[in-house]
């Protein structure tokens, strides 16, 4: 049985809508990967996320998690335990009135014995670096901290895959950094598979693979370098590129010999030094 999330020919249509939100999406997310999904609003990113853990089931085609079909209602709890979800609004996913109680919510639902829950909660709070906040009421936390509580709540369920649906969209730059650092650590140190949906390009750059969606379809797929070197194409579908990437692109257009796949300031400095 393959350890992966697989979408095959997936279409999805909302019941109130006449338009297809997703059209023939084929995707494979392997265990241990860090994948970013980018695309303008309404491109189907969030819909896709909800198909990964069986919140939605495909109108056509199928989604399987480690070989389990999400259409099969018997699999649904197994799938949700394997595939954790973090949503956009940090406020609306915290259930309990105390941080540690909230982190315990998932394992409690899974019927984990109390001592084991305690252990998992402490571990999860350790990983997101919120140990000192265990007894705090969530409304006193900053946005970034709340989002990390939400992540801890997912980690405590011991999922293999964590899907994040624009987890930083409502955060300030500090909160965004906190969350992205946590996400990177989860992937590198804890070996969790991460699917990060975002429209901040500097976050997508951190992933190993970037998937670009537009109007319900996957339109590009590749490493951040491959994707962001296509400045014109990205702009055409309403996406941004990091400033330095755009600068490199423009300078090439002016005949300067710079690489077209520059992602960071330091790379750009390296590129430009011999020329100036």
């Amino acid at each position: 049985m393959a350890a992966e999330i697989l979408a095959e020919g997936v279409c999805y249509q909302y019941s109130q809508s006449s338009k297809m939100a997703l059209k023939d999406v084929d995707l494979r997310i392997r265990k241990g990967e860090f994948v970013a999904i980018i695309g303008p609003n309404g491109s189907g990113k969030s819909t896709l996320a909800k198909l990964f853990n069986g919140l939605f089931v495909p109108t056509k085609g199928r989604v399987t998690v480690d070989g389990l079909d999400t259409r099969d209602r018997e699999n649904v709890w197994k799938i949700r335990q394997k595939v954790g979800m973090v949503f956009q609004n940090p406020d609306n996913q915290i259930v309990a009135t105390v941080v540690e109680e909230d982190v315990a919510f998932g394992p409690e639902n899974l019927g984990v014995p109390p001592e084991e829950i305690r252990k998992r909660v402490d571990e999860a709070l350790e990983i997101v670096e919120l140990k000192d906040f265990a007894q705090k009421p969530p409304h006193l936390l900053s946005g970034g901290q709340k989002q990390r509580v939400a992540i801890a709540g997912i980690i405590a369920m011991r999922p293999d895959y964590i899907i994040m649906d624009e987890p930083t969209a409502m955060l300030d730059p500090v909160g965004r950094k906190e969350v992205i650092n946590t996400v990177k650590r989860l992937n590198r140190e804890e070996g969790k598979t991460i699917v990060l949906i975002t429209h901040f390009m500097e976050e997508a750059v951190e992933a190993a693979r970037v998937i670009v969606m537009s109007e319900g379809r996957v339109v590009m797929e590749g490493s951040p370098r491959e994707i962001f070197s296509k400045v014109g194409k990205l702009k055409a579908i309403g996406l941004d590129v990091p400033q330095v990437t755009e600068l490199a692109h423009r300078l090439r257009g002016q005949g300067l010999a710079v690489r077209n796949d520059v992602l960071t300031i330091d790379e750009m400095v390296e590129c430009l030094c011999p020329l100036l």
Partner: protein
Amino acid sequence: MPIVVKNLTHIYMPGTPFESVALRDVNWNVEDGEFWGLIGHTGSGKSTLIQHLNGLLKPTWGEVIVDGVNISERGVNLREIRQKVGLVFQYPEHQLFEETVEKDVAFGPKNLGLPEEEVTRRVKEALELVGLKYDEIKDRSPFELSGGQMRRVAIAGVLAMKPKVLILDEPTVGLDPRGRDEILGQIVRLRERQNITVILVSHSMEDIAKLVDKIAVMHKGRMVESGTPKQVFKNYEALASIGLDIPQVTHLMIKLKNKGKDVATDVLTVEEAEAEILRAARRK
């Protein structure tokens, strides 16, 4: 219409154990027609400061003088001040409440007691200013619109008050790049057409650098810096020390300069950086 902030201090819940100082001795002059960017971390006092400018909050000490009127004075008509200083809060679409877009945008002008024809005229104008077609959208429920459209309707609701100063608290948060560019483009156009004063609160240094004439930096309740973008970003070490970024291209030029390259560092946009690097490369 100038706004003068003098020695403004604001303390939340004074005299209680929850007392907290949100603003300390802030001085700020906003001249007629200027475009200001207000930056700083969450909790740095930005929100408290802008809520003073239209009298939603009153100074604990100090003065806020809007168009010559001190807002703390007795008998001041706060409604008039709120009409002159329009404030668009974060996620303004959360305050939509009417059955139709037209009624919602009309809420402000109606509260001003304007005659009906004038209200309709203003609604039309405001919707067009935010790039929406009055005839197409006026009878729709605001709750059926897309996120970006909702936000524009909400902004129109403030524009319909015909403010002379427009304050926007992170008007692009949560939008995708295209939605963001649309809103920012409309703000620029609005300024061109009506020559109003704009104060833009934003976390995006790139946007701020591209748009504004002057920047004010808040940190822990104090205004630690103010001036033109070039002046403020030149002090990037000071900004970095309070955890604020500078635009990527500005950062790039500073790094090049530090490597001994002969480039100007007062670069704010991709276009400027392009020109500067080309210049430097050709010189070589």
